């Protein structure tokens, strides 16, 4: 927005909201919503503690592993669906189903099957992030102009070269967008998983803070998680933009 010739950066509005939060924190709402300044103070207090770092390690590991699996399975599956009509017709109904189904209802299933441990969290991450990666990869592969593939063939490329030099690169903008959306969903999935399991990673901290009414601690944890999710999203969006320049020109 531009006010009297000065361009206000978009996220600057957050400062306004931070002030609103701080003021609200000093009213009666302060019990539920403590002042932002005290929460930020708490962030510096809890981040170096062993229990926080421990939770971060476990959650981060599950998150990374889950996303790696989702990408490793999702991208090839999407390419397969984009290339083969039969595979597409067999699998697309399921991908669409999992994409719009309330996956939080499936977390209890994973819990009873795989216990209350890290496996459950990893599988929750995969469950949340994989489908959008598949769908985007498929869309990217289908958007490749046939003449680009014919060009490669006319210059004598073999199947592997066509795949590694043409398909993967031409579909990269969509694949990266899919991965970013998948990662955003995975962050939500990992938190939902830990809220429901509540004995692993941040779930433990949520449980402790909640049962002891430690609102400042709880909000501090939320702040860290939200900032992390937002930063991750922005970083991936930047990567996406680096390759997005040719998405429209393909």
């Amino acid at each position, binding site marked *: 927005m531009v006010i009297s010739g000065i361009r206000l950066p*978009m996220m600057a509005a957050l400062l306004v909201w931070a002030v609103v939060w701080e003021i609200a924190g000093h009213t009666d709402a302060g019990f539920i919503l403590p002042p932002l300044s005290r929460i930020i103070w708490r962030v510096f207090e809890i981040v170096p503690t062993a229990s926080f770092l421990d939770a971060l390690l476990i959650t981060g590991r599950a998150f990374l592993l889950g996303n790696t699996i989702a990408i490793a399975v999702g991208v090839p599956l999407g390419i397969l669906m984009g290339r083969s009509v039969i595979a597409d017709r*067999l699998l697309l*109904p399921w991908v669409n189903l999992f*994409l719009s*189904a309330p996956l939080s*209802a499936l977390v209890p299933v994973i819990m009873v099957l795989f216990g209350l441990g890290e496996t459950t969290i990893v599988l929750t991450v995969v469950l949340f992030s994989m489908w959008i990666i598949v769908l985007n990869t498929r869309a990217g592969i289908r958007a490749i102009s046939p003449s680009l593939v014919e060009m490669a063939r006319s210059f004598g490329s073999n199947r592997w070269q066509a795949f590694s030099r043409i398909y993967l690169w031409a579909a990269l903008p969509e694949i990266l967008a899919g991965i970013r959306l998948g990662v*955003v969903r995975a962050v939500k999935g990992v938190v939902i998983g830990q809220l429901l399991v509540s004995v692993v990673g941040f779930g433990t901290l949520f449980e402790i803070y909640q049962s002891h*009414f430690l609102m400042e601690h709880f909000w501090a944890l939320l702040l860290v998680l*939200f900032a992390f999710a937002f930063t991750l999203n922005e970083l991936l969006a930047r990567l996406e933009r680096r390759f997005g320049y040719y998405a429209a020109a393909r």
Partner: protein
Amino acid sequence: MQISELAPALPALREAPARRWRDLLIHPLVLRLLSFAAVLALWEYAGRIPLSPAFPTFLETLGGLGAIMADGTLFKAFLITLHPLVIGLTASILCGIALGVLMGLHEPSEWLFAPIFVIAQAAPLAALIPILTFAYGIGLTAKVMTVCIMAMPVIVLNTLGAVRNTPKSLLEMGSSFLATRSQSIRLIILPAASPMIFAGLRLGCAAAFIGVILAELLITPTGIGDVISYNQSVADYPKMYAAILSIIVFSVLFIELLERIEVTLFRPEARP
């Protein structure tokens, strides 16, 4: 291109029988049925190995579904679950579209509100549920709020994007034919935005279902959440799986219905 060549496969009767069988086999409907049959068969098989004592077969799950349908548990549970869902979703849709349109048309409000929703869209808002429980108790309100925080960001952002992306030439067309501001909003911007707004509504619905189930599992067990967690605790897995299956099928059908309504009402160009 391949798809359009394969679509009229069924009436190709004069061709060789082998070819006919192949065409029949890859017909979309046949493949879809085949796909569902294969997955259900796999489920049945995995249940019979058994994969885990907590993994009932498909037929056992159907039996469980029959049982909770017969004694009315499922029906009652759905009514209870739908209560916060419908209230929260209606509120999210009304407020979300209004806010999104406002932000799309009025730059200062976009500057003020958009960052919140951009962050909310990326952030794991489910973590707010314990705080909502503190603030609103364990009753209906907290569950409605859960549905709202899950569903609203995507509805708001899609509406904002939709309003912003009105084709420039349509706007110019409107003003060259002397549309007033309100005519141009009513007759051009909103109709042009409606497909993307509806896409946001579908995503919002999916998120609302996630939210309501999460609320029922986390805040206090009621409705479908209660059926799931009760049967989980007494290890009646067929019934637990049946409840999960039913809410997933229900939400998918609900979102499908929304899409049908959209196409029949607003999208002549998408009608078959």
